[in-house]
């Protein structure tokens, strides 16, 4: 299979990139070098080539220009027997193959071209790149030149055979080694064996369970026995111990019963008898004691009461006396305070006169009230004084401002006068805006121009490529070329003619063949001997008849015919000649009859020859007419083109030419359009520049001499900016001056107003001073001092008045107090009338107190007397009650006197005590007897010897403790153990779970064993196949590889052959010119790469001997080769390219150069990306 063309319609960086491998009309074979510098898309092209054959990879990186969906590669393949297929490959999961019209194609259509070569296989056997070459070289080293592996590797195109083999070995060894232990399978086998043991140990056999079960039953029985025995013994011990406890109690009971018997006739008194008796005796005694004590006290009290006397008239005046006594304190205090008050009043008077002197020396104390207006008008005086201060400071402030404003105004006016007026920039601005609306016209012109240049260059280049027509670009649009329909018509006519020509050719060939065949057969026929013909017979007969006629004329006519006879026959006499003729004719006639078949065949052959010849002649004539028609068509065709002075090629070629022309025309149109656009733009630009310059002139500015709009614009814009800025400043200054002027005027007004206000105030002040009758020329501050002093003066006067009132009040109170005291004393204590009022009041008070205490004492004694009387009465009643009670107690106890009661009480208590002891003992016996009745216990106890009890009890206890109890413990423990063991045999799923685990391991082993077998056998199969391949192919392959190797190494090695290494294995050896053997280990890395290449080339040649060749795709393998070896390699590829198509991808121009210089008859084509 060969690739005729490869068209990257949309793939990688390409759009409609066509690589035509048959463009020069040559066969597609040969060496095709696809050259592209870095980034030109060499890798994409390489991928694209493979993608065409085997589909575009799902994750293809070649979608950076065209979307994945749009990727398309078109190609044309051709087999060795001339079959062709043109198709398109798109990207997708399925249905990726289309015919050129876009209809779906079955992938199967590729089968005759790919011949079962899979993508992987194509990659490996029919592709080689630099990486693979290096890897192949290294692999040869790894294989130590082992011949089989080296050949097999090259045969597969694989560069990792050794690694594959090693991988199989490693995999198998990691899984299993017969004597290993750590390998996956080995260790799993071990685990499995262990698990099996564990399952057995966790499993429970039925026998084991039943043994355990019956042992438990036995132990439980024994345990129950021992427990019964233990219980019996314990109850016996209990019984004996009970008797031990109960016997003394029974004895005590008997004693108590005896004692009771002796107290049979005692009167049993009630429980509260003793208490009642005691209460009665106590009550009696208490009452008697009370009477004894109370009677004397009653008498004494009566005497005291009689001795006390009280003055009733004093008690009646009690309230008045107490009132006087209370007022005595304040009376004394007032008398004491009076001198101080008098002194204070004096002080105030002195102060007042001194203050008056300060304010109005002209006034007396009596005229004080004349000063009142000062106080009453105080607020307005102060306000007026304050107003003065405010007015003065306001006037100052206004004056200052006025002066400052004047200075500022002067400065501004000076600055304003320095700025000159300038004209308006509006016209210029309008021009600028209109120019700006154009956009970046300079760049546009520039880019259009560069586009124009590029397009011009492109058009020129295409024009120079446009064959057949000599002319200039601008003549192109006007070129009168024939229309498509005419071309199609002519093309069809040509096609018809071609078909006819073909048909004629075929017919002629058939006719020639037939003619040749017929003449062959005729020749053969004739060589087999003469064939008589009717013509010959006729000739013979006519000859005979001629001779006969002569003879007859001679014989019958006697004519001399010798002259005529001499013409007919010369050798013999006429009759002989006639005779001979007759014989000849007869003979021929006979032969004609005898050889009728041959005659017939000859005739038919001749007829056929004749008709075939006729046919051939006809065909020749038809050829003639075809030629004439063709010539006519040619003329017609040429005349079609004559108007444009073109000598046309075939219509098909002309159609392609026309397409080129159309493209070119389109470009020329573009070119013209572009030119027009540019001139339009430039005109526009010029107009605007002029308008701008005009505006500048109007403003008196200098014109710009730049042709670039942008620079003119920026000049204008900066002018406008400057003008605007000056205008702005002017306006600002005018505004400020106006403002300041207004300010200055208002300040002048204010200053005037302040002065007027101050004068008004002076008048007001003066009037005030006069109204107060004060001296003139008093300043507001002096005035405030006078106000202060006046206020002080009035305060002091007020205080002096208050003191005067208080002194008067004290004198009044003292007088009224003295009158009251004198009255009281004259009525109650006339003897004390000469005492001072104060002393008299004290005496009166003590008299009142004395009478009051006597009255209280009298009352108390009366109360005590009453109490004592009632006590004596009560006690007498109690004595009677108690005596009655004692009498009734005596009758109850059946005794006669009160004194006997105690004896009766004692006896009754003794009886009750014994009875209680008896009850206690009986209760104890019942408790100790644990449910047995006293009678039963008495009965049982009768036969028991108390002394034997301890011995019996000890014996029983010993038996329990030393014998039975240990046995029970042991048995209970044994039972517990057995129960526990049985409990463990509870139907656990431990063993089952382990079995699950064992199954898991078995599964793992099974899977790994399978992997092991696969790896092991794969290695084994591959090795034996390598060996077989070596045996079958070693000779011719090594011979061919040897030639390549010698050539590739430029004769550094003369030969490649097999040798045997120390292990007696066949290995590759290079032979030097001097006969030295070099093993692969001794070769340089580069040489090994060449060895690998030699083997690959030899293997390819072998492949092609028996299989349809496939293109060999070589990707830049020569990078590391020096110039000479690179040439040698290219040469080797060129030689191979005579047998199959070779497509070499390279980035290196040197490689292209070298290829061009190759001295090879192989066909070489360079394709640039």
């Amino acid at each position, binding site marked *: 299979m060969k690739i005729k063309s490869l068209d990257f319609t949309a793939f990688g960086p390409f759009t409609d990139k066509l690589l035509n491998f048959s463009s020069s009309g040559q066969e597609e074979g040969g060496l095709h070098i696809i050259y592209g510098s870095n980034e030109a898309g060499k890798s994409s092209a390489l991928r694209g080539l493979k993608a065409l054959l085997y589909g575009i990879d799902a994750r293809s990186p070649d979608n950076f220009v065209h979307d994945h969906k749009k990727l398309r590669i078109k190609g044309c393949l051709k087999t060795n027997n001339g079959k062709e297929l043109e198709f398109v490959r798109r990207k997708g999961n399925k249905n990726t193959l289309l015919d050129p019209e876009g209809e779906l194609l079955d992938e199967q259509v590729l089968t005759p071209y790919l011949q079962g070569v899979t993508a992987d296989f194509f990659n*490996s056997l029919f592709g080689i790149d630099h990486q693979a070459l290096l890897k192949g070289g290294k692999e040869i080293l790894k294989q130590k030149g082992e011949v089989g592996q080296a050949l097999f590797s090259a045969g597969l195109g694989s560069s990792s055979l050794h690694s594959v083999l090693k991988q199989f070995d490693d995999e198998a060894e990691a899984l299993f080694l017969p004597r290993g232990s750590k390998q996956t399978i080995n260790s799993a086998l071990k685990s499995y064996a262990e698990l099996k043991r564990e399952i057995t140990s966790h499993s429970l056999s039925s026998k084991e369970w039943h043994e355990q079960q019956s042992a438990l039953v036995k132990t439980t029985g024994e345990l129950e026995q021992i427990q019964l025995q233990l219980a019996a013994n314990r109850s016996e011990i209990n019984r004996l111990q009970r008797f031990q406890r109960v016997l003394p109690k029974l004895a005590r009971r008997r004693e108590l019963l005896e004692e009771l018997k002796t107290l049979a006739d005692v009167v049993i008194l009630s429980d509260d008898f003793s208490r009642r008796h005691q209460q009665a005796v106590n009550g009696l005694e208490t009452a008697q004691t009370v009477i004894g004590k109370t009677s004397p006290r009653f008498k004494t009290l009566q005497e005291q009461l009689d001795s006390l006397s009280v003055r009733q008239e004093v008690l009646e005046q009690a309230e008045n006396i107490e009132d006087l006594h209370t007022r005595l304190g304040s009376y004394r205090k007032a008398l004491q305070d009076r001198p101080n008050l008098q002194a204070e009043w004096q002080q105030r008077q002195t102060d007042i006169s001194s203050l008056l002197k300060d304010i109005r020396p002209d006034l007396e104390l009596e005229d004080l009230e004349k000063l009142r207006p000062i106080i009453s008008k105080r607020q307005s005086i102060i306000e007026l004084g304050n107003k003065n201060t405010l007015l003065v400071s306001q006037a100052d402030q206004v004056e200052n401002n006025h002066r400052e404003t004047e200075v500022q105004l002067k400065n501004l006016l000076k600055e304003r006068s320095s700025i000159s007026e300038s004209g308006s920039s509006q016209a210029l601005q309008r021009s600028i805006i209109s120019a700006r609306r154009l956009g970046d016209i300079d760049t546009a012109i520039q880019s259009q121009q560069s586009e124009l240049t590029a397009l011009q260059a492109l058009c020129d280049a295409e024009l120079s490529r446009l064959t057949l027509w000599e002319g200039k670009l601008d003549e192109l649009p006007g070129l009168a070329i024939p229309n498509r329909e005419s071309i199609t018509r002519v093309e069809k006519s040509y096609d018809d003619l071609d078909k006819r020509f073909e048909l004629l050719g075929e017919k002629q060939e058939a006719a020639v063949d037939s003619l040749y065949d017929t003449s062959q057969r005729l020749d053969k026929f004739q060589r087999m001997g003469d064939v008589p013909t009717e013509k010959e017979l006729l000739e013979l007969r006519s000859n005979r008849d001629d001779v006969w006629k002569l003879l007859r004329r001679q014989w019958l006519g006697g004519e001399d015919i010798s002259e005529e006879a001499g013409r007919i026959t010369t050798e013999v006499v006429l009759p002989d000649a006639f005779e001979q003729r007759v014989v000849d004719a007869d003979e021929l006639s006979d032969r004609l009859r005898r050889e009728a078949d041959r005659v017939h065949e000859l005739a038919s052959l001749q007829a056929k020859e004749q008709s075939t010849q006729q046919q051939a002649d006809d065909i020749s004539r038809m050829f003639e007419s075809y030629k004439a028609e063709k010539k006519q068509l040619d003329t017609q065709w040429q005349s079609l083109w004559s108007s444009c002075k073109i000598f046309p090629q075939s219509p098909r070629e002309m159609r392609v030419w026309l397409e080129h022309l159309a493209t070119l025309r389109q470009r020329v149109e573009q070119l013209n359009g572009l030119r027009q656009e540019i001139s339009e733009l430039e005109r526009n630009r010029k107009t605007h520049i002029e308008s701008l310059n005009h505006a500048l002139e109007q403003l008196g500015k200098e014109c710009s001499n730049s042709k670039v709009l942008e620079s003119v614009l920026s000049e204008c814009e900066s002018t406008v900016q400057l003008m605007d800025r000056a205008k702005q400043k002017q306006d600002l200054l005018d505004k400020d001056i106006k403002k300041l002027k207004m300010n200055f005027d208002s300040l002048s007004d204010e200053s005037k107003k302040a002065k007027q206000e101050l004068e008004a105030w002076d008048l007001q002040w003066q009037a005030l001073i006069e109204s107060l009758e004060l001296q003139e020329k008093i300043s507001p501050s002096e005035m405030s001092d006078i106000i202060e002093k006046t206020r002080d003066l009035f305060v002091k006067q007020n205080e002096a008045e208050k003191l005067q009132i208080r002194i008067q009040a004290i004198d009044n109170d003292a007088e009224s107090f003295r009158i009251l005291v004198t009255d009281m004393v004259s009525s109650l204590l006339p003897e004390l009338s000469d005492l001072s009022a104060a002393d008299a009041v004290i005496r009166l008070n003590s008299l009142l107190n004395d009478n009051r205490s006597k009255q209280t004492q009298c009352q108390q004694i009366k109360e005590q007397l009453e109490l004592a009387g009632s006590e004596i009465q009560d006690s007498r009643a109690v004595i009677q009650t108690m005596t009655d009670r004692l009498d009734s107690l005596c009758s109850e106890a059946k005794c006669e006197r009160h004194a006997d009661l105690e004896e009766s009480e004692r006896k009754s208590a003794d009886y009750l005590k014994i009875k209680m002891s008896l009850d206690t003992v009986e209760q104890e016996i019942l408790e100790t007897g644990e449910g047995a009745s006293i009678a039963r216990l008495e009965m049982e106890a009768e036969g028991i010897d108390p002394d034997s009890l301890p011995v019996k009890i000890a014996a029983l206890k010993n038996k329990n403790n030393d014998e039975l109890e240990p046995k029970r413990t042991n048995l209970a423990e044994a039972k517990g153990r057995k129960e526990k063991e049985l409990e463990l045999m509870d139907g656990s799923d431990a063993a089952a779970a382990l079995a699950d685990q064992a199954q898991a391991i078995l599964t793992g082993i099974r899977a790994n*064993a399978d992997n092991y077998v696969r790896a092991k056998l794969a290695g084994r199969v591959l090795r034996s196949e390598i060996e077989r391949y070596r045996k079958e192919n070693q000779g011719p392959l090594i011979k061919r590889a040897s030639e390549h190797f010698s050539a590739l190494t430029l004769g550094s090695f003369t030969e490649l052959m097999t040798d045997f290494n120390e292990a007696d294995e066949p290995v590759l050896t290079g032979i030097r010119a001097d006969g030295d053997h070099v093993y692969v280990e001794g070769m340089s890395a580069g040489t090994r790469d060449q060895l690998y290449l030699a083997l690959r080339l030899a293997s390819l040649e072998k492949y092609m001997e*028996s299989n349809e060749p496939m293109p060999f795709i070589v990707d830049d393998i020569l990078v590391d080769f020096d110039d000479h070896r690179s040439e040698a390699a290219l040469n080797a590829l060129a030689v191979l390219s005579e047998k199959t198509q070779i497509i070499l991808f390279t980035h290196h121009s040197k490689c292209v150069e070298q290829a061009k210089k190759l001295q090879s008859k192989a066909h070489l084509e360079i394709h640039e990306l």
Partner: protein
Amino acid sequence: MFKFIHAADVHLDSPLHGLERYEGAPVEEIRSATRGAFDNLIELAIDEDVAFVLLAGDLYDGDWKDYNTGLYFTERMGRLHNAGIRVFIVAGNHDAASQITRHLRLPDNVTIFSTRKPEQHILDDLNVVIYGQGFAKREVKDDLSLDYPQGDPEFFNIGLLHTCLDGKPGHESYAPCTVDGLRSKGYQYWALGHVHNRELVSEEPWIVFPGNIQGRHIRETGSKGCTLVSVENGEVIEVEHRELDVMRWSRCEIDVTDKESVDDIYEQVRNSLQLALDAAEGRPIAARLILTGICSAHTKLHSEREHWIQEYRNLSNNLDGAGVWLEKVVIKPRQPISADELLAQDDALGGLLDAIRTMELDESTLADLAEEVSSLRQKLPPEILSGEDNYDPADPDRLKDTLEDIKELLLNRLLSTEQGS
């Protein structure tokens, strides 16, 4: 009206087959699966208040010796006893071989039929007769049903029998009998066991294989359980399948044809496993993943086989549900272009493939190959070399299969090494 449960082939404590353990596998969830399923049976019997339970053979696994299994069974029978539910059992081929049954003392609600001759048990309260005979030895080749008595028309007659019926593929041919033979006995219900797939053989009378109650390997996929039968006035009125299994086996076959990349396949695997898991209704599953079809990602899947198995395991560990145990990953896809075309070519690769084909046909070469793996074979335990899922690496048929794999393997390894740019 009364109900009864018909179950069979419990195979108590028999291990699950084919589950290699790996990190993240739901080991605990699947532990004691047969017991779990049997517990479900006991619960169902009590919940549904059935009158009796029929166990149609193969209660135990033949070579399982742990008496604990028997004790477990006894305990569960005790529960049925407490609930007043009777149990009728015939021994199957596995029970005949089991050592557990010999000494087991079962509560008195459990009746085990004789293995010498057919017996009948009359349940007067229900007007039911149950006929049955167990396997006396592992291999019973006679038709046991022949000796079963004729049904009594006054009663509801049930025949309990462990049989392969007229032969079922994958099951040993024990106690064979015919549907006509069974019909002729005039019973209303034949409770059969031995065949692990549920099958309603006939409805007139009812002849039923309930299948086993818990799948134990990949050939026993789908829902497993027992048959719950309702009887009224001496007639079957309802026969329902009730699921008992605690984990389920599932084959996830995925056609990867036209999948562009291994990632697409990965997503498809996820979906398929999730579907299987959802179908198991909250149970964990053991799944076999089978990738079939022609696909361009083929080479990658094959050459990174172990990696992808690991990826799929991780994937299954992270699915929503009760857990997936990936039993096996079978990668079946073949190269888009058949190797046969390569075979036709006279070159190194064609030669290799041809050699493999020759080997497959040549007994002596196969013997040579068997020799190559004999050291492994010697070490393998008998449980692998024989038994249900026997694996003998030296077996010629297996070697032929292996060669097919090797062909694929060699093609992949030799051609998939990186070439070109």
